[in-house]
C-alpha cells in the first residue's frame, strides 16, 4: 500500500486503485514478469488501424481475397497474420454506392482490436453509442460524413462475440497503386464507417 510513498507527484485515487489491483494480482501469481510492459508495447505500436488498412488494401487488390474476407472475416484476416482478443468472430461489411455501414457498441466499447487497435475516445462515449443507433444520418453528417438521402445506412451493434469491420469503397483513380500505397489511403474512421474515402 505504500509503494507510492517516494513519488514526488501526487497519486490520484484511481492510480492508487490500479496500483492496489496490480499488487493483489501479482501476489496471486496472475501477472508474469514483463507482461504489463509487453501488452502495452503491443497495443501502442503493433496493433492498430494499419493492420485493418492492409486487410482492406488486399481486398481491393485481390478479388479472391475479398470473397474470402466477406465469407469468413476471421479466417481471411488471419491469413495476413492478424488475430487474437476481440477478433475471434470477425464479420466484414462492405460499403457500396447504395449502402453505407457503420459500427458501434451500444453497451460498452466492443471493437475489433486486431485490425483497428483500441477504440478512440469518442467511440466509447455515451453520445456516439446512443446517437449512432437513434439518428445515424444526422450524427454521421456532424462527424463530417454527410450521405445522400438515397444511400441506405446499416448500423452494426457489436454483440457478445461478433466484431465488425467496414470494407470501404476503393477510391477511383487508384488502379495503378501498389498494395502499400492502397493501404496508405485507408483511414481508421473509414473502417469504423464514420468516414468515406
Amino acid at each position, binding site marked *: 500500500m505504500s509503494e507510492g510513498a517516494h513519488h514526488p507527484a501526487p497519486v*490520484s485515487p*484511481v*492510480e492508487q*486503485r*490500479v*496500483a492496489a*489491483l*496490480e499488487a493483489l*494480482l501479482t501476489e*496471486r*501469481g*496472475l*501477472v*508474469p*514478469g*514483463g*507482461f*504489463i510492459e*509487453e*501488452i*502495452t508495447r503491443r*497495443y*501502442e*505500436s*503493433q*496493433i*492498430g*488501424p*494499419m*493492420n485493418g*488498412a*492492409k486487410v482492406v*488494401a*488486399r481486398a481491393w*487488390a*485481390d478479388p479472391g481475397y475479398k470473397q474470402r474476407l466477406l465469407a469468413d472475416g476471421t479466417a481471411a484476416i488471419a491469413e*495476413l497474420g492478424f488475430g*487474437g*482478443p*476481440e477478433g475471434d468472430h470477425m464479420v466484414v461489411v462492405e460499403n457500396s454506392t447504395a449502402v453505407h455501414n457503420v459500427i458501434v457498441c451500444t*453497451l*460498452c*466499447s*466492443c471493437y475489433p482490436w486486431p485490425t483497428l*487497435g*483500441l477504440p*478512440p*475516445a469518442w467511440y*466509447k*462515449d*455515451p453520445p456516439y453509442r446512443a446517437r449512432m443507433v437513434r439518428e445515424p444520418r444526422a450524427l454521421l453528417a456532424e462527424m463530417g460524413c454527410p450521405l445522400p438521402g438515397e444511400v441506405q445506412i446499416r448500423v452494426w451493434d457489436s454483440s*457478445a462475440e461478433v466484431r465488425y469491420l467496414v470494407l470501404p469503397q476503393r477510391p477511383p483513380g487508384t488502379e495503378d497503386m*501498389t*498494395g*502499400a500505397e*492502397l*493501404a*496508405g489511403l485507408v*483511414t*481508421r474512421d473509414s473502417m469504423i464507417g464514420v468516414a468515406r474515402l
Partner: protein
Amino acid sequence: MSRPLSLSDLDLPRRNGELAFDAPWQSTVFALTAAVVDFAFGGDREPFRQQLIKAIAAEPGRPYWESWTAALEALVQTLPERRTTHALTKRDRKCHGLGVPDPPSSSRPGISSITR
C-alpha cells in the same frame, strides 16, 4: 494481386488515430485485465465485458478508464481463491500469444489438466 505488405510499409497506428493510452495507469489496468482474462478465465472475455457494461451503466458520465478499473475490481472479487493457484500454465500463456517464459520446470506436473 498486391505484393505482401510488411509493418514497415506503414506508419504506427497513432498516425490514423490517437494514442492508445493517455496515462501509464490506463495501460497498466488494461494489461492487468488481459492477465486476469487469460490466466484466470482461460481467455474468456465475456465475464469482464459484463462487468464493464455494468460499470458504464452505473455511472455513464464517469471517465472510461475509471469505469474499466471499477469493472476489473468487480471481476477480481468474483475470482475463487483456488483458481488463481493454478495460474500461468503453458496453455494459458498462449491466449495472448506472448513469449512469456514458462514457469520453472519444478512446477507441478499435470497442472494444465487441472485448468482445462
